[in-house]
Each structure stands twice: as structure tokens, then as C-alpha cells.
């Protein structure tokens, strides 16, 4: 436990030190000021969404910061840290990463991306428990009643027409 805490503290210190060298940026800033950030070391954070897309010794993760999701190219070793990716049933790990931003990455077909050099899971994701609103059940029951009545009227009218 102590070793784990020590490791986390060291990681936080390293990240704070990097923060002095790198510029923290949101997805909106990165997209709007892409030319300015092109090739720069950036700090970016958000929720990992979708799936971790593994490609040999690297992987793609898509990190959503509340406005946009940006593709991050990470070494497979770093990708191993991610345990939850955001979906309907799960909130993704919230991560903070440091890497080089590319406006039109020459290695990846001119895409806007970040090549991560380090990554820290700030808050692990968790399962989302579905919450069924009772009012929906009530509406469903009422609608079902209406439909049954309509079908009965239809059957009655058909029988009468046959007579």
C-alpha cells in the first residue's frame, strides 16, 4: 500500500514538473489554435471513451474532455493502465496525459492527434447502474391500455361490418 502511494505521489510530482514545461490545453483550444500548438508538448485530460484500439506495440485511445474527443496514440505499456472505457454501462477512466500535439500528423494520415509520452489515471471509471423511472412504466401501462381498447374497437367494427 505504501509503495503504491509512493508511486502515485512520484507520478503526481513528475506531472506537476511537466506541467511547467508543457501547456495544458482543452480540446476546443487544440482544435481552434491547432497551428499554434502544432508540434508542442501539451497536457490534456478527460475521459477515455469507446474502446482501447490496440495496434501492435501502440494503441489508440479517444479522450473526451467535455467538448470533443481527441485521438491519442499511446505506447501499449501505457494503454495497459486503462481499465475502463466510457460507454452506456460504464464511465471511462479519467486520465491526464502529456504528449506532443500534431495538427496534421504525418505519421497518421494528416489527422489531428496527440502522441502521448506519459499518462496518469486520475479517477478510475466505474459501472453505471441503470435507473428506471417509475413514470415510464406508468406511461407504458396507460399506452398499452389505450392500444388494447383501440384493437377491441377495431375487432368489434370488423365483426359488425361482416354482419
Amino acid at each position, binding site marked *: 500500500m505504501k509503495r503504491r502511494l509512493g508511486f502515485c505521489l512520484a507520478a503526481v510530482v513528475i506531472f506537476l514538473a511537466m506541467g511547467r514545461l508543457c501547456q495544458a490545453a482543452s480540446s476546443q483550444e487544440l482544435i481552434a489554435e491547432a497551428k499554434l500548438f502544432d508540434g508542442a508538448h501539451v497536457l490534456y485530460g478527460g475521459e477515455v471513451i469507446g474502446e482501447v484500439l490496440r495496434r501492435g506495440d501502440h494503441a489508440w485511445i479517444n479522450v473526451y474532455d467535455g467538448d470533443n*474527443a481527441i485521438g491519442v496514440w499511446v505506447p501499449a505499456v501505457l494503454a495497459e493502465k486503462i481499465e475502463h472505457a466510457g460507454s452506456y454501462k460504464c464511465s471511462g477512466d479519467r486520465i491526464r496525459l502529456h504528449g506532443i500535439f500534431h495538427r496534421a500528423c504525418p505519421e497518421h494520415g494528416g489527422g489531428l492527434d496527440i502522441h502521448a509520452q506519459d499518462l496518469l489515471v486520475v479517477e478510475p471509471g466505474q459501472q453505471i447502474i441503470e435507473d*428506471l423511472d417509475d413514470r415510464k*412504466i406508468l406511461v*407504458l401501462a396507460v399506452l398499452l391500455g389505450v*392500444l388494447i381498447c383501440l384493437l377491441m374497437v377495431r375487432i368489434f367494427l370488423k365483426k359488425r361490418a361482416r354482419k
Partner: protein
Amino acid sequence: MILKPQTLDIRIILHFLGKIILGFGMMMVLPVAVSVMFGETVPVVDFAIGLIASISTGVLCILVARLDKHPEMNWMHGMVVVSLGWLVCMVLGAIPLYLSGHWKTFLDACFESMSALATTGLSLVQDLDHLSHGANFWRHLMMFLGGQGIVVVALSFLVKGGAGAFRMYVGEGRDEKILPNVAETAKFIWLVSLVYFVVGTLLLALCGHLSAGLSLREAVFHGACIFMAAFDTGGFSPQSQSIIYYQDGLFEFGTIIVMVWGAINFNLHYAIWNGKRKELWKDIEVRTFVITLGLVTLLAAAALAKGHVYGTIIGLVRRGLYQIISAHTTTGFSTIYSPQFILEWKSLALLAIIVAMGMGASICSTTGGIKMLRIGLIAKAFREDVKRFLMSDSSVVSTKFHHLKDMFLDDKLVRSAALMTIAYVLVYLFGTAAACFAGYPLLESLFESTSAAGNVGLSCGITQVGMPVFLKVVYIIQMWAGRLEFVSVLVLGGFIVSCIRGK
């Protein structure tokens, strides 16, 4: 003097409207099945509400109509049924979306629903990356239904073929029958679409699993959704980043194949199915598409290369050409972020993509926009006129073209093509003026308006949850009118006027 519609007219309209709603509503069983497969409980209840609301509405319409004999439908009935049917299906389709809680208002859910049905692809969804598989599947399924035609759904299962059925079929923006009987045509469209769906889903799932790195289950789900959106030139995607999410060239290539395949006239699909592959290269629509695609690509590539927007040829193809093909087939998939169009693309490249969106692809396909046949005919008419000036007064100039068969160009055809082109341009300008009125710059307004009315779905950033309500309504009208090619919408307008002012 305007004649007021009689009770029988309204009953005939209600009868067929009810059948269309029933056909559409029954389709909600499919997202219920998807939700069950993925173990999602709440979406099952949402779709059950939507399903029962739709079936109740359909049954109510048929009950109110109470027609004893098989009704005979005229052109007015057919057009009103179609245009009204699309509006009612928009509202019913929006119910499960709104209940999911991912759309801020019911109007936003209606916007999404119309965008899906009209195969546009503009979206007002919030937090798409956490949307249930069921609701996500429904967004894409609505594109598939709208692309093939809601009326085609009803014609295939619930309405007997005949003159009345053909009138509804035409009202849905298709004026070419593939087979002599319109119900057989509808069934053929479904047969082709389902075969392509299975093959396309498998291929995209393989790309997604083996190349992009998706898990097998997600690869199949994404393959199915992306196929429906690509083949029906709709442009929705299961994740908020559109095609960027997959970060994979092979997957992008797969979507290009499906988009182009979906942009081809269904009559040509029929010819290909019957072994007449040469038709594909002889047809005026395909030829015009190849020429216009070449021209807009050249323009955009020149502008992007001059501005050093993408440093490599591969970048130019994956970020530049991809957007152009997506725009020209009126799909709306994107491999760049929306604001990048305005921030990074040069004016000439933007102009090229707006022109591509405005032109669209084939008649009798799922694409929007002016369409290649009309552009081709107008170009041929211009050439004929120039030829006429160059030759002696006594010479007779005639122009032939090949569209399913050899035909002579006549003034009636050119007039109809020109009228429809003018109508589209006016609707593009109407949306542009509305967005300018809301305070957006001209170029962005033109881009978004062309995208909405041409049923494309690319966005430069105007379409957002926070945009003015009246602009949302304008875009809904543009998507609806653009998909139905105006006539049935105008007839509905006339019908309402005659109900109010008729004697």
C-alpha cells in the same frame, strides 16, 4: 375557386397514413432486440413506449378513416400522405430518443429523427459516447428506413401495389420504377438493401476488428451502424468523432466504397444484378458524377495543397478527398473536426465542398441534393445550344444520352431538370438567409444550409444544441423538403390552404 377537400379525401389520407405509421412503428422491435442483446433495460422500456405509441396512432388513424371498400388514391392523396407521414414518423421516432435523456428538448429529438429519416446526419445529441446501443441502433436504423423510403417499407408489407401506391412512391422523391409493379419495386429495393447490409456489415466488421482494433462484438455493431449510415448516405456514426474515432485508413476506405455504392441509382443496381455491368459506365448519371467529382477534387486539392493544409499526399487523400467524396455522395462522414473546415480549409476548398454537397449524386438512390441526372441534362442542353449557334440555321441538332436506355434530350426534360435545380438553389439560399439572420457569417451559413437541404450532414459548427430554436425548425423543414424533393411538401401546403379557404 379552391375546392375544399371532402370527408372521403381526408379518410383516404388517414387510412394510408395509418398504414405508413404502423409499418414504421413495427420497426421499433429491432432496437428492442438490440437492447436485449446488449443487456440494456431502460432502453427496452423507452422503445416499448415508442412502439405502442406508434401502433396506437396507426390503428387510430385507420379506425377514424373506416373505409369499407378498397380506396382509390389520386395524386393529391398520395403526396399529402407522404409529406404528412414523414412529419408524423419524425415525431414518433423522436419519442424513444427523447426518453433516453440524451436530447435536451423534444424539438432536438425531432431534429435528430428528421435528420436520420432524411439521411442528413446533422445531430443535436448530447454525450453520444454514453448513449445505449439500442438508441444508437435506432438512429442508424431510421437512416436505413428513411433512405429506402418509409413508404417503401409500408408498400412492401402493408399496401397493395397499384396506381395509388405508385403515387405515394413518387411523392417520396422517386420517379423511376425498377419493376412494372411498384410493390415489387419496393420489395426489390429491400432485397438488394438487405443483401448489401449483410455483406457490407461483415466487411466493415472485419475491417473494424482486424485493422481498427475493435472488439468483435463492437466491430459487428459498428459495422452494422456504419453500413446503414454509409449505404443510405446518411452520415450518423455511433461515436461523437464520426469516422475519426476508428483512426484507421482501411476502415475509411471501406466506408468510401459503401458511400459510393449507395450513391448509385437503384435501377443501375438492378442492371448490375442482372449482369448488365456495362450500364454502369454508359449511364449519364455515373459519367456526370465522375466528372464533377474530378473537378471538385481538383479544386479542393489545389486549394489545400497551396495552403499546405496537409503535408503529405496520404493526408490530402484521407482528410481532403474523403470529405469531398462524403459531401458529393451526400453522406456526411467526417475525418476532420467540424471547426477545421472554417479554420483550416481555404475558401476555394470550402467552395468546392459546398458545390459538391449542393449537387448530390443519383436520382432513385438515397442521396440528396440536385442530383447528377439533372446536372448532366442541363450541361447537355447547354452544349446543344452552343452547337446550334455554331451550325447553319437549317441544320437540325439533336442530342442523345443514355440513362437506363438511349433517349433524346427534349425541352420538357431540360425544363423539369432546370426547375428542380432552381428550387434546390432557392432552398439553399433560404437556409443561408435564416442563419445569417441568426448572426452567423455568410460562408458558414451557406455551408450548413446546403448541408441540411442537400441531406449531407457535414457541419462547420453551426448545428449545436445551443443554436436558435427557429434555425432548428428551418433546418428540419429544409431536410424534410430536400429529401421529398419539394413537390409533396408543396402539395401538403396547398391541401392545408384548401382545407381553410376552400368552398
